[in-house]
C-alpha cells in the first residue's frame, strides 16, 4: 500500500490486501505462509522529504489507505533501532508480509484440493489457436492441453508467452538484489521500513541502477535488505557495487546493522511494464487469451486481487454477461500499448 501513489494500482492493492487478510483467516494458513500484518514505516531524512511524504499520504488517505503521521519524537517508540536525526515518517498499518514461496505452495495446495492440477517442468512451446484465431489450448513439452481460455501468468517471461500466442506485451526484466542477514532476535526490526525516496525509484523509468533502502525482518529471523532496480536484461552475475550500495543504505537507516553479517544475497528479475501497471484481463487481439502479469516488484501483494479479477472475468463469460467486477480493469488492458512500442 505504502509505496503506491493514488490510482488504479493502489485500488488493486487495497482489494488484494483485503483478500490476503481473508485468505489468512482460513484455518492454519496465516502461520503456514508467515502472514504478518506488520505495517510499513516510511521515513524521511529531511524536512522537505517529510513534506513530500505527507503530501503523498494525504492523497492515499483520500482513497481509503490508513496512513498515520509519526513525528520525529515518536519514531523510536515504534521502531527503536532506527537512526537518530530523521525528520519523521508515516506509518501504514495495512501493509502486510507473507513468505512468497510458502504462500505460493499453499495456494497451489488449496487449488489442487479444489480440483486443479499442477504440472511442473512442463514448458509451453506453442499457444494453439483455431482457424478464426481464438485460443484452443497450449502445446507443451509433455503434450497438448486443450482449453478455451489460457491465462498468461508468466511474470517476467509474460512477453514471450504473448509472442507464442501471436501478440505482444512489453514486459522487460528489471533486476533487483536482496541481501539476507544472519538471524536476529524477533522484532529487532518491527516494520517494513524504507526511505521516502523508494517511492520515486519504483515509479522511475530509468534503466540505470537505483538503490533506496528497504529493511524488513522475517518470521525466521534474518533481516532482508533491498532494494535495487536496474534494467540489464537477464544478467545473473552478482554485483558487489550493488551489494555495497544496499548495505550503505540499510546501515544509514539502522546503524546497528553495521555489526550484523550478510549471510547471502539473491537476485531476481521483476516484470517491468513501461507505464508501471500490470496487464490484467482479456486480450482483445486474441480471443480466449487472458493476461495476469507485469506487476513489477508487487506481484505477491497484488496476486490475490489479480487472481480474483481474472476468475471473475472467466466465470462471467459463461454465467453472467452483465458482469459487475470488483475493480475496473480498463487501466490494465493488455492491448493498451502501441504495437511498435517494443
Amino acid at each position: 500500500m505504502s509505496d503506491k501513489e493514488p490510482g488504479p494500482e493502489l485500488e488493486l492493492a487495497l482489494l488484494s490486501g483485503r483478500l490476503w487478510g481473508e485468505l489468512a483467516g482460513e484455518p492454519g494458513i496465516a502461520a503456514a505462509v508467515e502472514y504478518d500484518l506488520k505495517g510499513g514505516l516510511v521515513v524521511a531524512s529531511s524536512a522537505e522529504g517529510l513534506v513530500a511524504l505527507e503530501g503523498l499520504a494525504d492523497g492515499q488517505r483520500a482513497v481509503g489507505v490508513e496512513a498515520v503521521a509519526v513525528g520525529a519524537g515518536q519514531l523510536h517508540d515504534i521502531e527503536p533501532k532506527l537512526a537518530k536525526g530523521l525528520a519523521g515518517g508515516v506509518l501504514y498499518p495495512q501493509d502486510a508480509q507473507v513468505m512468497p514461496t510458502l504462500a505460493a505452495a499453499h495456494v497451489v495446495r488449496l487449488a489442487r484440493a479444489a480440483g486443479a492440477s499442477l504440472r511442473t517442468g512442463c514448458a509451453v512451446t506453442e499457444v494453439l489457436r483455431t482457424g478464426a484465431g481464438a485460443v484452443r489450448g497450449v502445446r507443451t513439452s509433455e503434450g497438448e492441453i486443450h482449453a478455451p481460455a489460457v491465462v498468461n501468468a508468466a511474470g517476467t517471461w509474460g512477453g514471450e508467452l504473448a509472442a507464442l500466442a501471436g501478440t505482444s506485451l512489453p514486459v522487460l526484466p528489471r533486476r533487483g538484489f536482496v541481501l539476507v542477514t544472519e538471524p536476529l532476535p524477533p522484532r529487532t526490526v518491527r516494520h517494513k521500513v524504507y526511505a521516502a525516496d523508494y517511492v520515486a525509484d519504483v515509479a522511475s523509468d530509468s534503466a540505470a541502477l537505483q538503490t533506496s533502502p528497504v529493511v524488513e525482518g522475517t518470521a525466521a529471523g534474518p533481516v532482508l535488505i533491498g532494494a535495487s532496480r536496474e534494467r540489464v536484461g537477464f544478467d545473473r552475475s552478482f554485483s558487489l557495487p550493488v551489494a555495497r550500495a544496499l548495505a550503505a543504505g540499510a546501515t544509514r537507516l539502522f546503524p546497528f546493522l553495521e555489526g550484523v553479517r550478510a549471510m547471502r544475497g539473491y537476485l531476481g528479475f521483476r516484470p517491468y511494464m513501461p507505464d508501471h501497471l500490470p496487464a490484467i484481463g482479456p486480450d482483445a487481439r486474441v480471443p480466449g487469451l487472458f493476461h495476469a502479469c507485469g506487476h513489477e516488484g508487487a506481484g505477491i501483494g497484488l496476486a490475490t486481487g489479480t487472481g480474483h479479477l481474472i476468475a471473475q472475468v472467466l466465470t462471467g463469460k459463461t454465467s453472467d454477461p452483465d458482469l459487475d467486477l470488483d475493480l475496473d480493469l480498463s487501466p490494465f488492458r493488455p492491448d493498451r500499448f502501441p504495437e511498435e512500442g517494443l
Partner: protein
Amino acid sequence: MAEGPHLAVVGAGPAGLAAALAAAARGVRVTLVDSAAEAGGQFYRQPAAALGARRPQALHHQWRTWERLRDGLTAHVARGRITHLSDHHVWFVEGQSDGFTVHALRGPEQEQSVAVRADAVLLATGGYEKVLPFPGWTLPGVVTAGGAQAMLKGGLVLPGRTAVVAGTGPLLMPVAVGLAAAGAGVAALVESAGARDFAGHARTLAAHPAKLAEGARYAAELARHRVRIKAHHTVVAAHGSNRVEAVTVAALDGDGRVWPGTERRIACDTLAVGHGMLPHTDLAEALGCRLDGPGVAVDDEQRTDVPGVWAAGETTGIGGAVLSLAEGRIAGLSIAARLNSRTPEAGSYEAAVKARTGLREFFAVLDTVYAPPAHWTEQVADDTVVCRCEEVPASAIREAAGELGAGDVRTVKLLTRAGMGWCQGRMCGPAVAGLAGCEFQPSRRPFARPVPLGVLAGTDFDRHHTDSTDSTDSTEEGSS
C-alpha cells in the same frame, strides 16, 4: 616494491603452494591468501607451535614434499617475491576491467576487510567434506572423518577413547590409522563400498601401484592395531543420551539396502563419519566461472573460462594432494607465461601433465567405487534433523517434495529453510537433495563467508556511520 605482474593465490594448500612457488620462481609477484594460521592446507595441517609437537611428521606422509614446499615459501617470502597473508578469510573476488580485487576478512574476529589487487587470480580453495545424515548423527561425539583428522594433525588432541570410523571413501583408512596410532581404540572401520565394487576397475587401479601400495600399507597398519574392517556395511544409527555411547551397523545387500537381521551394536564414544568430498566453488561461481559437474571447469593449463582466473587442486575435482601439487605447478607455470604474454613451453611441465592425467583417471574410478549406499535415505527417520543450522527435520523435506510439490533443491530450501543457516547448506546440501529425490547442485553463494554489513557499506564495523559510502577497505598490495 618489486615490478612485474601480480598474482593472488587463494588457498595455501598443496595446489596453492605449488602454483605460488612455480610462478614466483619465474618473476611473478605473488600474494598468497589463506584462512589458516600456517600454510599447508588440510593435507599438511600443522600443529600450533605452542603445543611443541616433537614429531608432527608421524601423522603425515610425504613429509619431505612438505619440507620442500615450506622451505621454498620461506625463501620467497624472505626475498619479497611472495607475501603470505595468513588468517585471512576471502569472502569475495571481484572481477574488474583492469584486474581483480580479492576481499578478505582478517581473522579470527573477521570484522575488518583487506583488499588485494592483482592481475590474475588462482583459486585453490580445496574441498569440504560430505556427510549424510542418519538417526543420532547430531549427538556430541559424532564428528566428520576430516574433522577427526584435523584434530589429530592440528591439535594432536585425541577426540575420544573408543572410536568407530564409518562412511565411504579413501579418507577413512588414514583416519582410522591416525586414531589408532595416536592411542585410541578403533572398534571398527565401516565402509559401504565392498570388494565387488572394485572388481570392475582392476586395470585402472593396477596402473597405480604406488596408490595401491599406500592402501596396502594402511590395511597392514589397521591389521596391526586389530581394527575390524566391515566392508559393504553402513551405520544405521548412533545411540546415546548426552553423547554417543554406541552405534548400530548393518550389512548391505546387493541393491545397497540394509540387510535385515545383520544389525550389530558397537560401543564407542566417538564416531568419525564421512561420505567423500565436494569442491569449494563459491568464489569461482561469483566470478562467473563455468562448473563441470561439482568442480570448476578448467582447460589443459588450469585456466577457467573467465580470462585471468585459474583454478587448481580439489576446487576443480576431488583428487588428493599429489594431483593438487601437479595441477598447482601447471597453473603456476601457465600464469607466469601468460602474464608475460607468452605461451607456456610445452616441455616445462610434461611430468606434471602426465601425473595429472593418471591421477584424474584413478580418482574418477575411486569416485564410482566409493559411493554411499544406494538407498541411504531409507534409514533417515522423519524426526532426524537434516539441516542442523535451521533444525529442519527430514519430515519437512519430505513434505516439501511431496504435498507441496517442490521439484528442485532450491524450492525445497525456500519452503523448509534447509540450507539457509550459518553454513549455507555446505553440510546438508547433498542430504536435502537425496531426501527430496532431486539432483544435487551446488547452491550459489555470492559471499564465500558471512561479511559484516559495515564492511560491505565501507564503514568501519565498530565505528558509527560516516557519510562515506565508497569502498574503503584498506589496500594491501603484494609488497614486502
